[in-house]
């Protein structure tokens, strides 16, 4: 009989992960010569400046279209573009700039990080630390604060994620609570004490801007301010969820080899622009120092050691769906992806940890 997973960050699974050595463990890495890795890690402002200019110009252009065509059906294509750029591509900008790898210049990373955090209704301080934990303990139950689909999977919840409703319902009240100075025990488990005050200040800034936006909408007696600020988190989040869910869904948990718990999927160029190449997700987790624009090169260098990438998002979802259905009955079931003959094999002794013994 399988143990029920406890996804709390301060619960039984947390204790078990620490006692079994799964927490803060040393993870598998494909061997890459230092010279090649040094080249791949090199930072440059150029690609991110180019992409950010395209991003901002397209956001402003589609926002102008929304205002101009408001009240007509012509507003819809502009909302589609604006929504995805605001509600989805902000996630990849938040992510890459949070790592500090998008730009070489630090302040550029910080500026885009804060703007994107606001668009996502994410506390920039809290989420910086939760993401550090996600990289330390990727899909380790009881440790990782960013497990999108827990087991057994809640398919209704996963479906609603595409609408942004659940995230919106979580994010906004969280920001308000934090603005009043309250951080939860879970948040305190990964945010250092010296950073807690910064998290409160950041939440206050975000809430103040949302209050000002609502006030403007009331004064103008128009929905436009809210359609432009805040609501894209609902109507534009679908692309972020479509791409992001594939990162780890249906794969192993409580393992210390990203080849087992993370997925690389080939995607079309538009999705890759929106997602800033995070479809190369095994590569990103194994080597988070490599900037988004170098991930395709890293993929070519190490793919001999990785499971074959899914050729499309459609293929990946078709592969995942039966796994999710089976997890409804058997939550320990997962998709173990085959390695090519050129790869170093999975190391069973690292991945067959008896969690039940530690939990007793």
């Amino acid at each position, binding site marked *: 009989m399988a143990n029920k997973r406890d996804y709390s960050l301060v619960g039984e699974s947390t204790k078990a992960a620490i006692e079994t050595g799964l927490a803060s463990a040393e993870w598998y890495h494909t061997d890459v010569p230092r010279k090649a890795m*040094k080249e791949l890690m090199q930072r440059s402002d150029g690609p991110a400046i180019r992409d950010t200019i395209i991003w901002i110009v397209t956001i402003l252009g589609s926002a102008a279209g929304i205002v101009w065509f408001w009240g007509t059906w012509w507003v819809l294509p502009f909302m589609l573009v604006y929504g995805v750029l605001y509600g989805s591509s902000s996630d990849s900008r938040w992510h890459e700039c949070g790592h*500090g790898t998008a730009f070489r210049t630090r302040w550029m990373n910080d500026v885009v990080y804060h703007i994107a955090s606001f668009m996502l209704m994410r506390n920039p301080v809290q989420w910086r630390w939760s993401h550090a934990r996600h*990289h330390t303990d990727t899909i380790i139950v009881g440790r990782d604060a960013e497990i999108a689909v827990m087991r057994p999977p809640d398919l209704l919840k996963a479906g609603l994620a595409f609408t942004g409703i659940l995230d919106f319902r979580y994010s906004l009240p969280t920001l308000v609570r934090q603005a009043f100075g309250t951080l939860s025990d879970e948040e305190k488990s990964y945010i250092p004490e010296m950073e807690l005050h910064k998290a409160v200040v950041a939440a206050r800034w975000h809430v103040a801007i949302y209050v000002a936006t609502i006030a403007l909408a009331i004064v103008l007696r128009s929905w436009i301010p809210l359609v432009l600020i805040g609501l894209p988190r609902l109507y534009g989040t679908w692309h972020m969820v479509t791409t992001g869910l594939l990162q780890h869904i249906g794969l192993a948990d409580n393992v210390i080899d990203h080849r087992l718990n993370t997925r690389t999927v080939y995607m079309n160029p538009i999705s890759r622009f929106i997602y800033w190449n995070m479809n190369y997700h095994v590569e990103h987790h194994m080597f988070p120092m490599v900037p988004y624009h170098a991930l395709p090169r890293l993929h070519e260098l190490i793919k001999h050691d990785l499971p074959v990438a899914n050729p499309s998002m459609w293929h990946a979802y078709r592969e995942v769906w039966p796994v999710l259905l089976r997890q409804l009955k058997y939550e320990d079931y997962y998709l173990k992806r085959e390695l090519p003959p050129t790869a170093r094999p999975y190391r069973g002794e690292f991945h067959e940890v008896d969690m039940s013994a530690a939990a007793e």
Partner: protein
Amino acid sequence: MADWVQACAVDDVEEEDVMRFDHGGRTFAIYRSPDDEFFATDGLCTHEKVHLADGLVMDDIIECPKHNGRFNYKSGQAKAAPVCVNLKTYPVRIEAGKVMIDIG
């Protein structure tokens, strides 16, 4: 008390790069700056004990390979989250093409 040990040869470290040096059960990181000076710090990041020698040297910054936390490797000062605790630094001198560090 000073305890100078030989860490590596000067040519073992490329300019604007870092290498790992283990000694007496301890691990250190040896840096060669873009202006050809050598520095030494503890080898593990103060955040999650990851080897900094796998990280990236940019000017006077070492970036941790796991979480991208940054230190000034000349002063040891923590410069960017998620690192909050400074890195210990060690005196370095060059003798006959060898990099010596004082681990005392």
